[in-house]
């Protein structure tokens, strides 16, 4: 029986290069992802209410949403102390994950707030 002594493949997740994270604490990783998800969802809802109050229509609202998500990414990176490798295994997780997940909530609360403030 051949024995593989390749240590890079025996971890839960591995990446070669300068950041040799052979294995990581998956439970903490999941908890961190949940925190990002909650933050983004809440801010999508708040952003929808703000866009409705300010009377954005059409493309301006979606641009506002993109700006808001970019600000959220910046805030999350700042919360992680600018050293995301301590809390996540790749940049994409904190910068891009959940970017479009809050879009539906944003549009819902945007139309809701716009109707209440500007139409009724």
């Amino acid at each position, binding site marked *: 029986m051949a024995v593989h002594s390749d*240590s890079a493949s025996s971890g839960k997740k591995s990446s070669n290069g300068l950041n040799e994270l052979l294995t*990581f604490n998956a439970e903490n990783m999941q908890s961190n992802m949940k925190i990002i998800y909650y*933050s983004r969802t809440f801010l999508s809802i708040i952003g929808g209410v703000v866009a409705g109050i300010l009377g954005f229509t059409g493309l301006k609202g979606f641009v506002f949403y993109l700006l808001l998500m970019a600000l959220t990414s910046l805030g999350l990176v700042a919360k992680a102390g600018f050293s995301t490798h301590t809390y996540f295994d790749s940049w994409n997780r904190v910068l891009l994950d959940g970017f479009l997940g809050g879009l539906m909530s944003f549009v819902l609360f945007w139309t809701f707030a716009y109707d*209440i403030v500007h139409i009724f």
Partner: protein
Amino acid sequence: MGLGFVVGFIGLLILFHAAYSTIQYRGLLKITEEEFSGPPLNVVIEVTLGLVLCMWAALTVPGKFLSIHPDSEENRIVSLPANLDFMIFNHRYKVFPVELDVKLKH
């Protein structure tokens, strides 16, 4: 975390107040029959303030980030359980490279 909730609640209250004053502003525009070109300046300031407070609350209320390195300070298991019969030490982790700078701390 209680502070985060309070800050978020205050941010929401400010947003509701801004919405109410925008509704009143629109009522005024209907009376004077002008077009709605943009919210008044105080509404914009209020909304920005409410957004900043809610953003701060959204980043602090869900909880702290936990480190995912297995050898970081907060992930240490420093106490041996009383029942040593079930602790084994010849598991698969022995294929990992040896780190010679791990210190023993109380």
